[in-house]
């Protein structure tokens, strides 16, 4: 916590130093004081935009995590499905998903749907990959015990492979939580008039760089808050289960 505060203070100091040293005009690089002023002055506008971005992020995160978990379970439960899809999962990680944002807007319009779809796409792959890896690498001694006890395929999945994979799933969800707000912002950036991404694009177009920076800071704060909440929840969930 203290280290975090020191880090933020150092970053602000560095930023101010950069403004002084480069002598760039405020419409190119506004200083921290100016951005703080704008943040206060435009707080209603920024808060409303943040609300949209947060909603898209949360809905997308829940849907993406759910889809990723379902896919990983299906792949682990039916070997042919797993064998067929696991290369696809790896290939899909090489696709720069952001490049799909314009197409999503084309397909789904300018409402919330394409932004949520963007978040889903970004969250779903790391969650599915992490959980699938965990499900496919169950602890050997426990597997031996379960086999000798006569556990069937489903009992094995439900009582051993899935619980043993929870730490991996948690890693996937943490990654998803980090990427999710970025997905929402990119979606808003490409199409639409609402959310922090749209606000940033509009501010940029009108040379209101200070507003752009203010929105950016809110994106970062939102992302960190989301990550902190999810990380704390996952830690508690894992600790309760002896991990």
């Amino acid at each position, binding site marked *: 916590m203290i280290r975090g505060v020191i880090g933020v203070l150092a970053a602000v100091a560095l930023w101010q130093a950069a403004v002084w040293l480069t002598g760039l005009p405020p419409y190119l690089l506004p200083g921290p004081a100016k951005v703080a002023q704008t943040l206060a002055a435009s707080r209603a506008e920024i808060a409303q935009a943040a609300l949209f971005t947060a909603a898209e992020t949360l809905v997308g995160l829940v849907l993406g995590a759910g889809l990723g978990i379902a896919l990983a379970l299906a792949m682990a439960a039916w070997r042919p499905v797993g064998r067929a899809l696991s290369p696809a999962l790896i290939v899909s990680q090489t696709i720069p998903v952001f490049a799909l944002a314009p197409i999503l807007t084309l397909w789904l319009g300018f409402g919330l749907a394409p932004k949520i779809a963007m978040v889903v796409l970004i969250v779903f792959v790391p969650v599915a990959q992490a959980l699938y890896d965990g499900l496919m690498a169950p602890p050997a001694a426990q597997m031996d*015990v379960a086999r000798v006890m006569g556990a069937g395929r489903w*009992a094995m999945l439900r009582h*051993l492979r899935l619980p043993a994979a929870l730490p991996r799933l948690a890693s996937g969800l943490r990654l998803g939580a980090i990427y999710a707000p970025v997905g929402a912002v990119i979606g808003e950036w490409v199409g639409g008039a609402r959310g922090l991404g749209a606000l940033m694009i509009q501010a940029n177009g009108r040379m209101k760089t200070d507003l752009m920076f203010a929105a950016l800071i809110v994106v970062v704060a939102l992302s960190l808050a989301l990550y902190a909440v999810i990380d704390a929840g996952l830690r508690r969930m894992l600790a309760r289960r*002896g991990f």
Partner: protein
Amino acid sequence: MTRPTPAPASVGVSGEAPGLFGPLALRLAQGRVTCLLGASGVGKSTLLRLLAGLPTGVDFRGTVDSAPAALMGQDPGLFSWLTVAQNVALGARLRGERADPARIAALIDAVELTGLETRLPANLSGGQRQRVALARTLAEDRPLVLLDEPFSALDARLRLMTGDMAVRLLKGRTVLMVTHDPAEAARLGDRFLVMTPAGLAEIDAPPGEVPRRHDAPEVLAAQAGLTERLIA
């Protein structure tokens, strides 16, 4: 505790694994404790896994006559997300059966873990964990019990106590116990088998019911004899 159903008289493994061990015939004494000793890597765990019906990764050619088995490995293999009581009742959970709470409580009492029922394995000592695994093995109530270096992680005192406890609680079952400790074998084994790449050699066991006293002269003599065989 219920009287165990006896395992068939013919439980054993006969065959060979080229490159690992030559032709051998392992027969377990019905209702008795057979201790299996031998150098590291000679194939003791492989024989035990064959009896358990587990994959071995070696090219075994031969036949396995087994019976419904309970397994306790060197790694106790506890489920870290289940409590002590849930781990002891694991078999029922995995088979979708209902465990009898009174019986589980009796087993936890038998291994002297009463009061720790709701602990997770992470919050137990190594010796307590091995006793949970022992109770879980007993809860299976199988005629054949396979123990692979079950007490190797314990200190001398706990090893003695837990070994004696295990043999008493397993009375009447057909037991195969892999161990590296001649003293443990001399106290707990009704029969001793020493495994080498050439095959199995049976060594005479001292008289008397197991568990024997660790300091009885015939037990010390048997321990010395076994040690002699293992370092030869």
